[in-house]
């Protein structure tokens, strides 16, 4: 019977390899990118809170405490580092995907990631300038860049999990 079916071309071919088993990028780098991404999102949100408290303290005239400034600065460097590393890792993952696996949302995710990273770096530079130059407006520019970067990170995550 099977021979007859084979002759007629009606017999199914052997079951192919499941699509997730030949997935690119490697599941480990994909998982690392995902964990770093959620870590970046959490860090950014905490950083917004710390930045808010810092700016409020400046506006109040007494300035932030040393602990608050150190925490905000340390987390700032962490966020910039995480964003840069994860954007590079994500881009590597995208380039190693098979063309047929890529979707528009992957490209949009990458574009938003690069935008967010550029904004984080910009926010960092503005914060550095604000620290060295006594121009208060630069703190607001730093805040605005950081808020837009955080928004872009939120959007980046939303695009890919949607």
């Amino acid at each position, binding site marked *: 019977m099977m021979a007859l079916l084979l002759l007629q071309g*009606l017999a199914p*071919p052997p079951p*192919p390899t499941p*699509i997730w088993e030949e997935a690119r990028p490697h599941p480990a780098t994909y998982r690392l990118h*995902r964990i770093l991404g959620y870590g970046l999102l959490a860090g950014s949100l905490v950083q917004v809170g710390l930045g808010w408290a810092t700016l409020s303290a400046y506006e109040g005239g007494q300035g932030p405490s040393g602990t608050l400034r150190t925490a905000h600065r340390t987390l700032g460097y962490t966020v910039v580092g995480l964003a840069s590393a994860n954007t590079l890792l994500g881009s590597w993952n995208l380039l190693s995907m098979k063309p047929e696996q890529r979707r528009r*949302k992957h490209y949009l995710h990458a574009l938003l990631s690069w935008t967010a990273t550029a904004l984080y770096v910009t926010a960092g530079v503005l914060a550095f300038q604000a620290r060295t130059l006594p121009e208060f407006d630069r703190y607001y520019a730093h805040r605005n860049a950081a808020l837009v970067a955080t928004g872009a990170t939120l959007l980046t995550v939303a695009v890919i999990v*949607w």
Partner: protein
Amino acid sequence: MLLLLMAQVYQVAGGEAAYWTVVRSAAGLIPHEIRAVNRDVSGVVRVTDTAVVGTLHVPVARFSSGNLQRDQDVAEILEYRAHPYVVVTLRADPETLKPLLTGMEDSLSFPIRIALTVRDCTRMFEIPAAVLVRRGDTLEGRATVATRFTQLGLSPPRVKGLGFLGGLVSRADDTLHLTGTLRFVEKEEQP
């Protein structure tokens, strides 16, 4: 003319099958459409003067929705190890295809009956207007079926739509659209 139509065999040579459904996450508050594509469809359609009969095999583990965790979950729900293929058996009236197969028309719309087997459940569907278009040496066929998971003997699947830390579970609506856009080439009939 009938001799010309006797025992022509067309083999799938590309194209895709796909399904659409709506998955709701966050306790059903956030709907989003899922479209999964499968480009590994195989099968043949045999055209004789009395019948157009074909069998298509769609590998369950080759649907790609852009989320590998979800694709694996869906394949496991469909028991891909025991039932590696969704099997589509189709049947049409050869008279309806004659204008295209004899070169009088380059495209036509025709009714078709299909039997869809998912796991061990088979359901019949009437598609009033499948489309067949001639493109050079190939024929491109398109057909769509609107059905429900429950009609195919399945519960609307709960899948890991977001896939973080084990996955935030989403549930699909009980709607399912299946579509096939397949290219066929004529092959030599086996003796």
